[in-house]
Protein backbone atom coordinates (compact mmCIF):
# COMPACT_ATOMS: atom_id res chain seq x y z
CA UNK A 1 0.00 0.00 0.00
CA UNK A 2 1.08 3.55 -0.75
CA UNK A 3 0.03 6.35 1.56
CA UNK A 4 0.53 10.07 1.03
CA UNK A 5 0.12 12.48 3.93
CA UNK A 6 -0.15 16.14 3.08
CA UNK A 7 2.66 15.78 0.57
CA UNK A 8 3.89 19.17 -0.65
CA UNK A 9 6.67 20.26 -3.00
CA UNK A 10 7.63 23.78 -4.01
CA UNK A 11 10.04 24.93 -6.68
CA UNK A 12 10.78 28.51 -5.71
CA UNK A 13 7.39 30.20 -5.46
CA UNK A 14 5.70 27.61 -7.67
CA UNK A 15 3.83 24.90 -5.77
CA UNK A 16 4.20 21.68 -7.78
CA UNK A 17 2.44 19.38 -5.33
CA UNK A 18 0.04 20.93 -2.86
CA UNK A 19 -0.94 19.00 0.25
CA UNK A 20 -1.71 15.68 -1.43
CA UNK A 21 -3.19 12.98 0.79
CA UNK A 22 -4.50 9.66 -0.48
CA UNK A 23 -4.02 5.92 -0.27
CA UNK A 24 -3.39 3.46 -3.04
CA UNK A 25 -4.77 0.02 -2.20
CA UNK A 26 -3.46 -3.38 -3.25
CA UNK A 27 -5.34 -5.72 -5.58
CA UNK A 28 -6.50 -3.15 -8.11
CA UNK A 29 -4.89 -0.93 -10.72
CA UNK A 30 -5.08 2.70 -9.56
CA UNK A 31 -4.81 5.32 -12.25
CA UNK A 32 -3.12 8.64 -11.45
CA UNK A 33 -4.64 11.18 -13.78
CA UNK A 34 -3.98 14.80 -14.43
CA UNK A 35 -3.12 17.24 -17.20
CA UNK A 36 0.50 17.85 -18.21
CA UNK A 37 2.34 19.64 -15.44
CA UNK A 38 -0.17 18.73 -12.76
CA UNK A 39 2.49 17.23 -10.48
CA UNK A 40 2.15 13.52 -11.23
CA UNK A 41 5.83 12.88 -11.92
CA UNK A 42 6.96 15.02 -8.98
CA UNK A 43 4.64 13.05 -6.71
CA UNK A 44 6.07 9.77 -7.99
CA UNK A 45 9.64 10.99 -7.50
CA UNK A 46 8.82 11.96 -3.92
CA UNK A 47 7.29 8.53 -3.23
CA UNK A 48 10.63 7.05 -4.39
CA UNK A 49 12.68 9.41 -2.25
CA UNK A 50 14.32 10.98 -5.30
CA UNK A 51 12.90 14.42 -4.52
CA UNK A 52 12.53 15.60 -0.94
CA UNK A 53 9.08 16.94 -0.01
CA UNK A 54 8.89 20.37 1.60
CA UNK A 55 6.13 19.11 3.81
CA UNK A 56 4.30 15.88 4.57
CA UNK A 57 5.42 12.36 3.74
CA UNK A 58 4.96 9.43 1.42
CA UNK A 59 4.89 5.96 2.97
CA UNK A 60 5.12 2.52 1.45
CA UNK A 61 3.72 -0.25 3.61
CA UNK A 62 4.03 2.23 6.48
CA UNK A 63 7.67 3.25 6.01
CA UNK A 64 9.51 5.88 4.01
CA UNK A 65 11.11 4.64 0.81
CA UNK A 66 14.58 5.49 2.10
CA UNK A 67 14.04 3.17 5.06
CA UNK A 68 13.27 0.10 2.94
CA UNK A 69 16.18 -2.32 3.38
CA UNK A 70 16.10 -3.74 -0.17
CA UNK A 71 13.79 -1.32 -1.96
CA UNK A 72 13.60 -3.17 -5.27
CA UNK A 73 11.97 -6.12 -3.52
CA UNK A 74 9.25 -3.84 -2.12
CA UNK A 75 8.70 -1.27 -4.87
CA UNK A 76 9.24 -1.48 -8.61
CA UNK A 77 9.28 1.78 -10.51
CA UNK A 78 9.18 2.86 -14.13
CA UNK A 79 9.98 6.56 -14.02
CA UNK A 80 10.87 7.35 -17.58
CA UNK A 81 12.04 5.34 -20.54
CA UNK A 82 15.52 6.82 -20.37
CA UNK A 83 16.77 5.96 -16.91
CA UNK A 84 19.69 3.91 -18.24
CA UNK A 85 23.11 4.50 -19.80
CA UNK A 86 22.75 4.19 -23.60
CA UNK A 87 26.15 2.53 -23.90
CA UNK A 88 25.28 -0.29 -21.52
CA UNK A 89 23.45 -3.46 -22.55
CA UNK A 90 20.05 -4.23 -21.09
CA UNK A 91 21.52 -7.29 -19.41
CA UNK A 92 24.35 -5.32 -17.76
CA UNK A 93 21.90 -2.60 -16.69
CA UNK A 94 19.63 -5.14 -15.02
CA UNK A 95 22.58 -7.08 -13.55
CA UNK A 96 23.95 -3.95 -11.89
CA UNK A 97 20.59 -3.11 -10.33
CA UNK A 98 20.07 -6.76 -9.29
CA UNK A 99 23.47 -6.77 -7.57
CA UNK A 100 22.59 -3.63 -5.61
CA UNK A 101 19.69 -5.42 -3.93
CA UNK A 102 21.38 -8.82 -3.71
CA UNK A 103 19.00 -10.38 -6.25
CA UNK A 104 20.14 -13.54 -8.07
CA UNK A 105 21.29 -13.31 -11.70
CA UNK A 106 18.48 -15.68 -12.66
CA UNK A 107 16.00 -12.86 -11.97
CA UNK A 108 17.64 -10.83 -14.72
CA UNK A 109 17.02 -13.55 -17.33
CA UNK A 110 13.50 -14.07 -15.98
CA UNK A 111 12.42 -10.44 -16.35
CA UNK A 112 14.10 -10.22 -19.76
CA UNK A 113 11.86 -13.09 -20.87
CA UNK A 114 8.79 -11.50 -19.29
CA UNK A 115 9.26 -8.28 -21.26
CA UNK A 116 10.41 -10.08 -24.41
CA UNK A 117 13.93 -8.64 -24.61
CA UNK A 118 15.94 -11.86 -24.15
CA UNK A 119 17.16 -11.94 -27.75
CA UNK A 120 18.43 -8.36 -27.73
CA UNK A 121 19.63 -8.16 -24.11
CA UNK A 122 23.29 -8.04 -25.16
CA UNK A 123 22.77 -5.00 -27.36
CA UNK A 124 23.53 -1.51 -26.12
CA UNK A 125 20.29 -0.04 -24.80
CA UNK A 126 20.87 3.19 -26.72
CA UNK A 127 20.09 1.30 -29.93
CA UNK A 128 16.62 0.33 -28.72
CA UNK A 129 13.37 1.71 -30.09
CA UNK A 130 11.11 3.64 -27.74
CA UNK A 131 8.94 0.56 -27.24
CA UNK A 132 11.96 -1.57 -26.32
CA UNK A 133 13.13 1.12 -23.87
CA UNK A 134 9.75 1.04 -22.15
CA UNK A 135 10.03 -2.74 -21.94
CA UNK A 136 13.48 -2.41 -20.35
CA UNK A 137 12.00 0.04 -17.84
CA UNK A 138 9.25 -2.44 -17.02
CA UNK A 139 11.88 -5.17 -16.60
CA UNK A 140 13.64 -2.98 -14.01
CA UNK A 141 10.34 -2.46 -12.19
CA UNK A 142 9.68 -6.22 -12.07
CA UNK A 143 13.25 -7.17 -11.14
CA UNK A 144 12.76 -7.54 -7.39
CA UNK A 145 9.29 -9.13 -7.70
CA UNK A 146 7.87 -6.20 -5.69
CA UNK A 147 4.46 -5.93 -4.06
CA UNK A 148 4.10 -2.30 -5.08
CA UNK A 149 4.50 -1.02 -8.65
CA UNK A 150 4.79 2.60 -9.66
CA UNK A 151 4.70 3.43 -13.34
CA UNK A 152 4.93 6.94 -14.76
CA UNK A 153 3.27 7.12 -18.19
CA UNK A 154 4.17 3.55 -19.17
CA UNK A 155 2.27 3.59 -22.48
CA UNK A 156 3.98 6.74 -23.79
CA UNK A 157 5.34 5.98 -27.23
CA UNK A 158 4.13 2.39 -27.34
CA UNK A 159 2.39 0.93 -30.36
CA UNK A 160 -1.09 -0.64 -29.96
CA UNK A 161 0.38 -4.08 -29.37
CA UNK A 162 2.69 -2.69 -26.68
CA UNK A 163 -0.15 -0.79 -25.04
CA UNK A 164 -2.24 -3.93 -24.81
CA UNK A 165 0.73 -5.83 -23.42
CA UNK A 166 1.25 -3.24 -20.64
CA UNK A 167 -2.47 -3.20 -19.89
CA UNK A 168 -2.68 -6.98 -19.51
CA UNK A 169 0.53 -7.08 -17.51
CA UNK A 170 -0.65 -4.42 -15.03
CA UNK A 171 -4.07 -6.00 -14.58
CA UNK A 172 -2.41 -9.37 -14.05
CA UNK A 173 -0.04 -7.93 -11.41
CA UNK A 174 -2.95 -6.30 -9.56
CA UNK A 175 -4.92 -9.55 -9.70
CA UNK A 176 -2.01 -11.21 -7.87
CA UNK A 177 -2.69 -8.81 -5.00
CA UNK A 178 -0.06 -6.19 -5.75
CA UNK A 179 -0.49 -2.44 -5.47
CA UNK A 180 -0.31 -0.97 -8.98
CA UNK A 181 -0.16 2.81 -9.37
CA UNK A 182 -0.02 4.11 -12.93
CA UNK A 183 0.11 7.72 -14.03
CA UNK A 184 -1.27 8.94 -17.32
CA UNK A 185 -2.75 12.01 -18.93
CA UNK A 186 -4.83 9.79 -21.23
CA UNK A 187 -8.24 9.17 -19.71
CA UNK A 188 -9.29 6.73 -22.43
CA UNK A 189 -6.32 4.49 -21.77
CA UNK A 190 -6.85 4.66 -18.01
CA UNK A 191 -10.46 3.67 -18.42
CA UNK A 192 -9.31 0.38 -19.95
CA UNK A 193 -6.51 -0.31 -17.48
CA UNK A 194 -7.49 1.11 -14.10
CA UNK A 195 -10.29 0.39 -11.66
CA UNK A 196 -9.74 3.23 -9.27
CA UNK A 197 -8.74 6.75 -10.27
CA UNK A 198 -6.97 9.56 -8.46
CA UNK A 199 -7.28 12.83 -10.36
CA UNK A 200 -5.03 15.81 -9.64
CA UNK A 201 -4.60 19.26 -11.15
CA UNK A 202 -2.04 21.93 -10.26
CA UNK A 203 -0.74 19.62 -7.58
CA UNK A 204 -4.06 19.31 -5.76
CA UNK A 205 -6.32 16.34 -5.31
CA UNK A 206 -9.41 16.83 -7.48
CA UNK A 207 -11.13 13.46 -7.13
CA UNK A 208 -10.73 9.97 -5.75
CA UNK A 209 -13.15 7.85 -7.68
CA UNK A 210 -13.66 4.75 -9.81
CA UNK A 211 -13.95 4.41 -13.54
CA UNK A 212 -17.52 3.08 -13.07
CA UNK A 213 -18.58 6.11 -11.01
CA UNK A 214 -17.20 8.57 -13.52
CA UNK A 215 -18.88 6.83 -16.42
CA UNK A 216 -22.24 6.96 -14.63
CA UNK A 217 -22.19 10.74 -14.09
CA UNK A 218 -20.94 12.16 -17.38
CA UNK A 219 -21.70 11.36 -21.00
CA UNK A 220 -18.16 10.20 -21.58
CA UNK A 221 -15.04 9.70 -19.51
CA UNK A 222 -13.40 12.44 -21.50
CA UNK A 223 -16.15 14.88 -20.49
CA UNK A 224 -15.73 13.79 -16.89
CA UNK A 225 -11.99 14.41 -17.06
CA UNK A 226 -12.48 17.89 -18.49
CA UNK A 227 -15.13 18.72 -15.90
CA UNK A 228 -12.76 17.71 -13.10
CA UNK A 229 -9.67 19.42 -14.43
CA UNK A 230 -11.26 22.50 -16.07
CA UNK A 231 -10.12 24.85 -13.34
CA UNK A 232 -6.73 23.28 -13.03
CA UNK A 233 -5.22 23.39 -16.49
CA UNK A 234 -2.36 25.78 -17.01
CA UNK A 235 -2.49 26.38 -20.73
CA UNK A 236 -5.52 26.68 -22.99
CA UNK A 237 -5.47 26.94 -26.77
CA UNK A 238 -8.19 28.28 -29.03
CA UNK A 239 -9.52 26.92 -32.30
CA UNK A 240 -7.29 27.61 -35.26
CA UNK A 241 -8.47 30.66 -37.21
Amino acid at each position, binding site marked *: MIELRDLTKRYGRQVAVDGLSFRVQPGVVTGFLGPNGSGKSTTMRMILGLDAPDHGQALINGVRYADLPRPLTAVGALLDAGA*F*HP*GRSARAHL*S*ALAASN*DLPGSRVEQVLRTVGLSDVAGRRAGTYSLGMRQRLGVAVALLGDPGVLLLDEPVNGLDPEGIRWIRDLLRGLAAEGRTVFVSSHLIAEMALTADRLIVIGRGRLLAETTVAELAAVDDSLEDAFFRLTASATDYHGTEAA
Partner: protein
Amino acid sequence: MKNATRMEWIKLRSVRSTWWLAIASVVAMAATGVGVGLGYRSHTPVATAAQIFNNSLSGAILAQLLLGAIGVLVVTSEYGTGMIRSTFAAVPRRRTVLAAKVIVGGGAALLTGMTASFAGYLGGQLAITGTAIPSAPLSDAANLRAVVLTGVYLAATALIGVGIGTVVRHSGAAIGILFGLMFVPTIAAGLFGESGIAVGRFVPLLMLLNAIAVTTPTPGLFSGPVSTLLMCGYALALVLFGAVLLRRRDA
Protein backbone atom coordinates in the same frame (compact mmCIF):
# COMPACT_ATOMS: atom_id res chain seq x y z
CA MET B 1 27.83 -1.44 0.98
CA LYS B 2 29.07 -4.69 -0.56
CA ASN B 3 26.06 -4.85 -2.88
CA ALA B 4 26.41 -1.21 -3.89
CA THR B 5 30.07 -1.86 -4.67
CA ARG B 6 29.13 -4.85 -6.85
CA MET B 7 26.62 -2.66 -8.67
CA GLU B 8 29.22 0.03 -9.32
CA TRP B 9 31.75 -2.50 -10.56
CA ILE B 10 29.25 -3.94 -13.07
CA LYS B 11 28.37 -0.42 -14.18
CA LEU B 12 31.99 0.64 -14.59
CA ARG B 13 33.06 -2.33 -16.70
CA SER B 14 29.94 -2.44 -18.87
CA VAL B 15 30.51 0.83 -20.71
CA ARG B 16 33.12 1.19 -23.43
CA SER B 17 34.37 4.62 -22.42
CA THR B 18 35.95 3.13 -19.27
CA TRP B 19 38.05 0.73 -21.31
CA TRP B 20 39.03 3.26 -23.95
CA LEU B 21 40.17 5.76 -21.34
CA ALA B 22 42.04 3.13 -19.32
CA ILE B 23 43.80 1.71 -22.37
CA ALA B 24 44.59 5.19 -23.66
CA SER B 25 46.19 6.20 -20.36
CA VAL B 26 48.47 3.14 -20.34
CA VAL B 27 49.34 3.57 -24.01
CA ALA B 28 49.99 7.29 -23.54
CA MET B 29 52.49 6.65 -20.76
CA ALA B 30 54.17 3.72 -22.50
CA ALA B 31 54.50 5.71 -25.72
CA THR B 32 55.91 8.72 -23.89
CA GLY B 33 58.44 6.50 -22.12
CA VAL B 34 59.55 4.88 -25.38
CA GLY B 35 59.60 8.24 -27.16
CA VAL B 36 61.80 9.80 -24.48
CA GLY B 37 64.18 6.84 -24.54
CA LEU B 38 64.50 6.86 -28.32
CA GLY B 39 64.95 10.61 -28.40
CA TYR B 40 67.89 10.43 -26.01
CA ARG B 41 69.61 7.42 -27.65
CA SER B 42 71.87 9.47 -29.88
CA HIS B 43 71.89 12.54 -27.68
CA THR B 44 75.20 14.20 -26.81
CA PRO B 45 76.32 14.55 -24.14
CA VAL B 46 75.09 11.15 -22.96
CA ALA B 47 71.88 11.49 -20.98
CA THR B 48 71.86 10.80 -17.26
CA ALA B 49 69.78 8.04 -15.68
CA ALA B 50 67.64 10.68 -13.95
CA GLN B 51 66.94 12.49 -17.23
CA ILE B 52 65.59 9.32 -18.83
CA PHE B 53 63.73 8.28 -15.71
CA ASN B 54 62.03 11.60 -14.98
CA ASN B 55 61.07 12.29 -18.57
CA SER B 56 59.83 8.76 -19.20
CA LEU B 57 57.14 9.31 -16.56
CA SER B 58 55.98 12.61 -18.02
CA GLY B 59 53.22 10.83 -19.95
CA ALA B 60 51.38 11.13 -16.64
CA ILE B 61 50.43 14.67 -17.72
CA LEU B 62 48.10 13.12 -20.29
CA ALA B 63 47.22 10.02 -18.25
CA GLN B 64 45.99 12.16 -15.34
CA LEU B 65 43.41 13.79 -17.63
CA LEU B 66 42.22 10.44 -19.00
CA LEU B 67 41.92 8.86 -15.56
CA GLY B 68 40.36 12.03 -14.20
CA ALA B 69 37.78 11.75 -16.96
CA ILE B 70 36.99 8.17 -15.89
CA GLY B 71 36.35 9.47 -12.38
CA VAL B 72 34.13 12.27 -13.64
CA LEU B 73 32.12 9.96 -15.89
CA VAL B 74 31.52 7.44 -13.09
CA VAL B 75 29.20 10.10 -11.66
CA THR B 76 28.14 12.49 -14.42
CA SER B 77 27.24 9.85 -17.00
CA GLU B 78 24.48 8.84 -14.59
CA TYR B 79 23.10 12.36 -14.32
CA GLY B 80 23.38 12.91 -18.06
CA THR B 81 21.40 9.80 -18.93
CA GLY B 82 18.84 9.61 -16.11
CA MET B 83 20.52 6.44 -14.80
CA ILE B 84 21.01 8.19 -11.47
CA ARG B 85 17.29 7.82 -10.71
CA SER B 86 17.49 4.06 -11.27
CA THR B 87 20.58 3.97 -9.06
CA PHE B 88 19.08 5.98 -6.18
CA ALA B 89 15.79 4.06 -6.41
CA ALA B 90 17.81 0.85 -5.96
CA VAL B 91 20.08 2.28 -3.23
CA PRO B 92 18.35 5.23 -1.50
CA ARG B 93 21.36 5.81 0.76
CA ARG B 94 23.13 8.15 -1.58
CA ARG B 95 26.36 8.39 0.33
CA THR B 96 26.63 4.60 0.16
CA VAL B 97 26.43 4.96 -3.61
CA LEU B 98 29.13 7.65 -3.58
CA ALA B 99 31.35 5.55 -1.30
CA ALA B 100 30.93 2.60 -3.68
CA LYS B 101 31.88 4.82 -6.61
CA VAL B 102 34.99 5.96 -4.73
CA ILE B 103 36.00 2.38 -3.94
CA VAL B 104 35.36 1.03 -7.43
CA GLY B 105 36.49 4.07 -9.42
CA GLY B 106 39.49 4.64 -7.16
CA GLY B 107 40.46 0.96 -7.20
CA ALA B 108 40.23 0.69 -10.97
CA ALA B 109 42.15 3.94 -11.39
CA LEU B 110 44.86 2.78 -8.98
CA LEU B 111 45.33 -0.44 -10.93
CA THR B 112 45.32 1.40 -14.26
CA GLY B 113 47.51 4.24 -13.00
CA MET B 114 50.05 1.80 -11.58
CA THR B 115 50.09 -0.15 -14.84
CA ALA B 116 50.49 3.07 -16.82
CA SER B 117 53.29 4.31 -14.57
CA PHE B 118 55.25 1.07 -14.85
CA ALA B 119 54.59 1.04 -18.60
CA GLY B 120 56.09 4.52 -18.90
CA TYR B 121 59.13 3.54 -16.85
CA LEU B 122 59.69 0.28 -18.74
CA GLY B 123 59.18 1.99 -22.10
CA GLY B 124 61.94 4.45 -21.27
CA GLN B 125 64.32 1.79 -19.99
CA LEU B 126 63.75 -0.59 -22.92
CA ALA B 127 64.30 2.18 -25.44
CA ILE B 128 67.80 2.93 -24.12
CA THR B 129 69.07 -0.66 -23.96
CA GLY B 130 72.36 -1.07 -25.74
CA THR B 131 73.37 2.57 -25.31
CA ALA B 132 75.87 4.19 -22.97
CA ILE B 133 73.02 5.76 -20.97
CA PRO B 134 72.93 4.27 -17.47
CA SER B 135 69.76 2.42 -16.56
CA ALA B 136 67.61 3.34 -13.55
CA PRO B 137 66.83 0.04 -11.82
CA LEU B 138 63.75 -0.37 -9.59
CA SER B 139 66.04 -1.96 -7.01
CA ASP B 140 66.95 1.64 -6.26
CA ALA B 141 64.33 2.68 -3.69
CA ALA B 142 64.07 6.24 -5.03
CA ASN B 143 63.13 4.94 -8.49
CA LEU B 144 60.59 2.41 -7.25
CA ARG B 145 59.05 5.06 -4.99
CA ALA B 146 58.66 7.52 -7.86
CA VAL B 147 56.96 4.96 -10.12
CA VAL B 148 54.58 3.81 -7.38
CA LEU B 149 53.76 7.36 -6.24
CA THR B 150 52.99 8.34 -9.82
CA GLY B 151 50.45 5.50 -9.94
CA VAL B 152 48.89 6.71 -6.68
CA TYR B 153 48.84 10.32 -7.97
CA LEU B 154 46.90 9.13 -11.02
CA ALA B 155 44.36 7.31 -8.84
CA ALA B 156 43.95 10.46 -6.74
CA THR B 157 43.23 12.40 -9.93
CA ALA B 158 40.42 9.98 -10.74
CA LEU B 159 38.94 10.57 -7.28
CA ILE B 160 39.22 14.32 -7.78
CA GLY B 161 37.16 13.62 -10.91
CA VAL B 162 34.57 11.72 -8.86
CA GLY B 163 34.37 14.64 -6.44
CA ILE B 164 34.01 17.30 -9.12
CA GLY B 165 31.46 15.13 -10.95
CA THR B 166 29.35 14.81 -7.80
CA VAL B 167 29.42 18.55 -7.22
CA VAL B 168 28.84 19.66 -10.82
CA ARG B 169 26.76 16.70 -12.19
CA HIS B 170 27.39 17.66 -15.81
CA SER B 171 30.02 15.80 -17.86
CA GLY B 172 31.24 18.69 -19.98
CA ALA B 173 31.39 21.18 -17.15
CA ALA B 174 33.06 18.71 -14.78
CA ILE B 175 35.75 17.70 -17.28
CA GLY B 176 36.35 21.37 -18.08
CA ILE B 177 36.79 22.17 -14.40
CA LEU B 178 39.07 19.17 -13.92
CA PHE B 179 41.33 20.28 -16.80
CA GLY B 180 41.25 23.83 -15.48
CA LEU B 181 42.29 22.72 -11.98
CA MET B 182 45.17 20.75 -13.46
CA PHE B 183 46.61 23.52 -15.62
CA VAL B 184 45.49 26.96 -14.47
CA PRO B 185 47.19 26.86 -11.02
CA THR B 186 50.41 25.79 -12.76
CA ILE B 187 50.35 28.88 -14.94
CA ALA B 188 49.29 31.05 -12.00
CA ALA B 189 52.20 29.79 -9.88
CA GLY B 190 54.54 30.94 -12.64
CA LEU B 191 53.30 34.50 -12.20
CA PHE B 192 54.71 34.67 -8.69
CA GLY B 193 58.25 34.51 -10.06
CA GLU B 194 60.82 33.75 -7.38
CA SER B 195 58.28 33.03 -4.66
CA GLY B 196 56.28 30.84 -7.05
CA ILE B 197 57.70 27.72 -5.46
CA ALA B 198 55.95 28.50 -2.18
CA VAL B 199 52.67 28.29 -4.06
CA GLY B 200 53.82 25.72 -6.61
CA ARG B 201 54.39 23.01 -4.06
CA PHE B 202 50.64 22.86 -3.55
CA VAL B 203 49.84 22.69 -7.28
CA PRO B 204 49.00 19.21 -8.70
CA LEU B 205 50.87 19.30 -12.01
CA LEU B 206 53.97 20.93 -10.49
CA MET B 207 54.00 18.36 -7.70
CA LEU B 208 53.79 15.59 -10.27
CA LEU B 209 56.63 16.84 -12.46
CA ASN B 210 58.97 18.09 -9.74
CA ALA B 211 58.33 15.98 -6.64
CA ILE B 212 56.40 12.79 -7.43
CA ALA B 213 57.50 11.41 -10.81
CA VAL B 214 61.16 12.18 -10.21
CA THR B 215 64.03 10.49 -8.39
CA THR B 216 64.99 13.66 -6.49
CA PRO B 217 62.42 16.39 -5.80
CA THR B 218 63.23 19.98 -6.72
CA PRO B 219 64.37 21.87 -3.58
CA GLY B 220 61.60 23.90 -1.97
CA LEU B 221 58.87 21.41 -2.90
CA PHE B 222 57.38 18.84 -0.57
CA SER B 223 58.77 15.33 -0.81
CA GLY B 224 57.14 12.82 -3.16
CA PRO B 225 55.13 11.01 -0.46
CA VAL B 226 53.92 14.29 1.09
CA SER B 227 52.95 15.68 -2.33
CA THR B 228 51.03 12.48 -3.10
CA LEU B 229 49.25 12.66 0.24
CA LEU B 230 48.33 16.25 -0.53
CA MET B 231 46.73 15.08 -3.79
CA CYS B 232 44.77 12.43 -1.86
CA GLY B 233 43.71 15.18 0.54
CA TYR B 234 42.36 17.29 -2.33
CA ALA B 235 40.44 14.27 -3.59
CA LEU B 236 39.00 13.56 -0.13
CA ALA B 237 37.93 17.18 0.34
CA LEU B 238 36.13 17.27 -3.02
CA VAL B 239 34.41 13.92 -2.44
CA LEU B 240 33.24 15.05 1.02
CA PHE B 241 31.92 18.30 -0.43
CA GLY B 242 30.05 16.24 -3.03
CA ALA B 243 28.66 14.02 -0.26
CA VAL B 244 27.26 17.03 1.58
CA LEU B 245 25.54 18.34 -1.57
CA LEU B 246 24.28 14.87 -2.48
CA ARG B 247 22.13 14.72 0.63
CA ARG B 248 20.38 17.98 0.01
CA ARG B 249 19.69 17.97 -3.68
CA ASP B 250 16.86 16.33 -5.59
CA ALA B 251 18.00 13.65 -8.01
